């Protein structure tokens, strides 16, 4: 009963019992260190420290001979060095190098400690005597610390080869096909009833003016037919759990009220709907066209399935409808009782390709959008230009007449402190494209109001030249306002764009029939929630933050989660596609490797000491700590733990500890840096 009832403080045993035999290797780093630190004095000092069996200096310890020097001491039958202190540059430079060196010599790589006397001493301390003294302190700290080091192994967790891709725009589609073609299983989740994103709305794409549908729709259908792709449209990510290699994700599938498996997309139900005429603003047509409560977003929609809008369907709103859609459906696919469904999937990696949102120009009232009928957004005009659009490709005003003069206002919701400070990158080019298309379709006068013309990209500038030759007018200066008010007869019944022409240095009033606002690209409102769900972050503007703006543009700070396309920042189609490719290959690289290596400096719980006080649990930013009810103890999932040690510092019982940063290791270092100098 005794030990059980009276547990007690026993003096700490050193890890793995054996006695430390420490080797200290001091680097001159040419003159980088030797110049302001007396390395010889340092060596003599090191020799006298407890358990130090070898102390050597060398010009460049990181060089092959230097590395050999260390290996030899470890393997020397008399010296038997079993702990190594490297005294030189910052551990952030060569810790890995020397870990490799000592493990090659048969020592566990974590029996190494680095004393940083270059960045922290020789380069910042002019006085040699002072520098040497400080170096001694740091060296002693390292010697005392390495004494406490324990043998550790890097941990490997297998990577689940399945992949989740969020967002079915051109980026998501490209990534999905690339990965699926490589033989991996892909879940593609899209919020709208059909994939395709913005590209599906366009008529032509710059600078080649090739038909958007012609290049996109084949990809969409191969997504549908691909054996390795599970496509869930009209669905959203509801919950994310787990970590790189092993995510557990819940997908919310919104009810279509149409059985997706049986629906043939034959339009019979749409024809049969009790609403004889389309009556409600069509989302896909961004309000330019109308649809019925039951509809198919567009002819090439993927999946090509009907969907019922619960807010306008008589049956679903009032419960009173003769349900002619259901009657006519030969497949009995209509199901008014359909409810939301939650799918649980397990994947190893995730690509977010959630894209962007077009700026809502109501936020820039000076342009009169929503006030004047004939002020349109660029997206609306994309639909007007589209042969499959509401006007069959004719660019006409709301009253059906063809505009004789059109103004295209650049940078609406871009490069504007009042709304969005950034350049939306794609607008100049798509404005040029629209200029071409509306001119071609209306033969009217087209005026572009721009701040700067930005055409960086293969054959973009050439495209600009082409449009110039077509006789489109360009006025350099941000448009101040769009008003329906006439100063003279010429302006009567027109929209007047007022802008400073900064080339001529005058304010100009240009009366036109139609105004097209080239709206900028914005992050989605819920970008931050999505980021939080995946434990990553958004910049202040709301774009997803990449791990490194230059060297890791598709990585995020959450391992295993990648980003592609405009969700990372404004992008045109070519850039989105190439980023999607990059993200896909990062994913494939991880899958191909098959496992993830984790630094072993994770936290762990000494169960005998844990009283189950819960202090640590809420402190973990990675929800790596959970409470084991039957044991009544906290548990740390080492695969989730990133090794910050916050829980360790907080644990009131000292039951939580961190490998490679244990209390004892740090106490030793504290004593070391203070005791001898």
């Amino acid at each position: 009963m005794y030990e059980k009832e009276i547990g007690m403080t026993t003096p700490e045993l050193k890890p793995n019992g054996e006695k430390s035999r420490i080797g200290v290797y001091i680097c001159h780093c040419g003159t980088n260190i030797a110049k302001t630190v007396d390395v010889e004095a340092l060596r003599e000092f090191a020799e006298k420290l407890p358990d130090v069996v070898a102390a050597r200096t060398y010009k460049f310890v990181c060089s092959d001979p230097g590395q050999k020097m260390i290996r030899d001491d470890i393997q020397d039958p008399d010296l038997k060095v079993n702990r190594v202190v490297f005294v030189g540059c910052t551990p952030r430079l060569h810790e890995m190098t020397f870990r490799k060196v000592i493990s090659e010599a048969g020592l566990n790589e974590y029996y190494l400690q680095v004393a940083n006397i270059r960045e922290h001493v020789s380069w910042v301390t002019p006085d040699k005597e002072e520098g040497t003294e400080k170096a001694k302190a740091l060296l002693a700290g390292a010697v005392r610390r390495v004494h406490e080091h324990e043998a550790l192994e890097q941990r490997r967790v297998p990577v689940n080869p399945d992949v989740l891709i969020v967002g079915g725009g051109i980026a998501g589609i490209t990534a999905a096909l690339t990965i699926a073609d490589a033989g991996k299983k892909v879940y593609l989740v899209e919020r709208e009833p059909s994939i395709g994103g913005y590209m599906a709305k366009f008529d032509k794409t710059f600078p080649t003016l090739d038909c958007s549908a012609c290049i996109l729709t084949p990809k969409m259908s191969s997504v549908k037919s691909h054996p390795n792709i599970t496509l869930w449209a009209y669905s959203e990510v509801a919950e994310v759990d787990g970590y790189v290699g092993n995510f557990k994700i819940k997908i919310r599938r919104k009810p279509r009220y149409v059985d997706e498996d049986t629906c043939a997309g034959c339009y019979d139900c749409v024809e049969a709907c009790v609403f004889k005429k389309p009556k409600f603003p069509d989302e896909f047509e961004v309000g330019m066209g109308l649809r019925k409560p039951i509809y198919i977003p567009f002819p090439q929609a993927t999946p090509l399935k009907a969907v019922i809008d619960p807010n306008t369907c008589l049956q679903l709103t009032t419960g009173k409808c003769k349900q002619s859609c259901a009657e006519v459906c030969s497949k009995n696919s209509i199901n008014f009782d359909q409810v939301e469904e939650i799918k649980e999937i397990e994947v190893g990696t995730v690509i977010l390709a959630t894209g962007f949102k077009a700026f809502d120009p109501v936020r820039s009232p000076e342009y009169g959008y929503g006030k004047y009928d004939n002020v349109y957004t660029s997206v609306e005009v994309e639909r007007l230009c589209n042969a499959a659009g509401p006007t069959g490709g004719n660019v006409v005003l709301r009253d059906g007449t063809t505009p004789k003069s059109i103004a295209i206002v650049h940078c609406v919701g871009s490069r504007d402190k009042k709304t969005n400070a950034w350049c939306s990158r794609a607008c100049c080019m798509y404005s040029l494209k629209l200029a071409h298309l509306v001119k071609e379709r209306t033969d009217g006068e087209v005026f572009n109001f721009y701040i700067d013309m930005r055409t960086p990209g293969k054959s973009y500038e050439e495209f600009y030249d082409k449009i110039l030759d077509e006789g489109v007018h360009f006025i350099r200066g941000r448009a101040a306002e769009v008003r329906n008010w006439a100063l003279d007869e010429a302006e009567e019944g027109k929209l007047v764009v007022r802008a400073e022409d900064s080339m001529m240095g005058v304010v100009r009033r240009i009366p036109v029939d139609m105004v097209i606002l080239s709206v900028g690209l914005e992050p989605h409102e819920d970008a931050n929630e999505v980021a939080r769900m995946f434990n990553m972050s958004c910049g202040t503007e709301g774009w997803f933050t990449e791990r490194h703006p230059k060297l890791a543009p598709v990585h995020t700070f959450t391992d295993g989660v990648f980003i592609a396309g405009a969700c990372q920042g404004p992008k045109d189609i070519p850039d989105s596609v190439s980023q999607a490719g990059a993200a896909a290959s990062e994913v494939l690289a991880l899958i191909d490797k098959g496992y993830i290596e984790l630094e072993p400096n994770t936290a762990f719980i000494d169960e005998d000491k844990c009283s189950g006080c819960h202090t640590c649990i809420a402190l973990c930013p990675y929800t790596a700590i959970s409470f084991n009810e039957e044991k009544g103890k906290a548990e740390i999932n080492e695969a989730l733990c990133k090794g910050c040690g916050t829980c360790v510092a907080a644990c009131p019982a000292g039951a939580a500890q961190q490998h490679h940063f244990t209390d004892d290791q740090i106490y030793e270092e504290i004593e070391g840096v203070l005791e001898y100098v």
Partner: protein
Amino acid sequence: MEGTDMKYIYYPGCSASGTGRGYEESTLPVFEELGIEMVTLEDWNCCGATAYMSVDEAKAFALSARNLALAEDQFPDMDEVHIVAPCAACYLGLLKAKKYIDTDPKIGGTIRKALQSAELDYTGRAKVRHPLDVLVNDYGLDKLKEKVKRPLTGLKVAAYYGCQIVRPYSDFDEGHDPQTMDQVLEVLGVEAIEWPHKTRCCGGAQTWSSDPFLELVWIILKDAIGSGGDAVATACPMCQFNLECFQNKIRAKFDYQKKIPVVYFTQLMGLALGIDANKLGMNRLFERLELPASV
């Protein structure tokens, strides 16, 4: 007491006793009627407005800063001292000075030094407010509605804000399509007409010097009238002056026959609150305001 439980400092500015007299003569009784307590800033000085600002910014800031410092001095134990500056130029001048002193260490340093030499100190407690801001955001339109004794039903007014009270430093209303004055007018029973030139330039001080600027005034008047306004309501002595005094010249220059009275929004408030027109300085108007029979 009724009104807001806040206490405000009133900054008249030079125009209040000059061309803009009608503005003060209507603002003070209106605020009194509403029970909004307002005491005049003691020993106030020029706000350093537009002209000075363009000659010597630092000195202009210093002038404004002195007013801010005096205000803090006058209410030593308030966390925030709210200065109400009806004149758009004063409002902008004080606001601009405050912004730069608060945010630009260099300017802030210089100005504080200058103040110290006069044994004054500006801590940042002073806030600059426009009457519209106070009415809508502190006092509240609902409360104002209760106070209306004589709704100005049937009167159509073009609310004209001018540039200075909505751009670029103030944040109580939208910079290109402001609404606060329209809201106040609607509460008075007035129909605030929809028109695009609410914040268009009135020509500022230039109307004196050269004719082209008359066109600016003309655009505003023409649109106000064209959009069906019986009157233009302003919140700025300069705007009021420009829009009112040049109507003869404009009629001559652009051979345009129509006239329109240009009043301060506070004068309309006074009328709706049942204050006698002559006590609101409306007798000073060149173009008398005819109230519709419905009132």
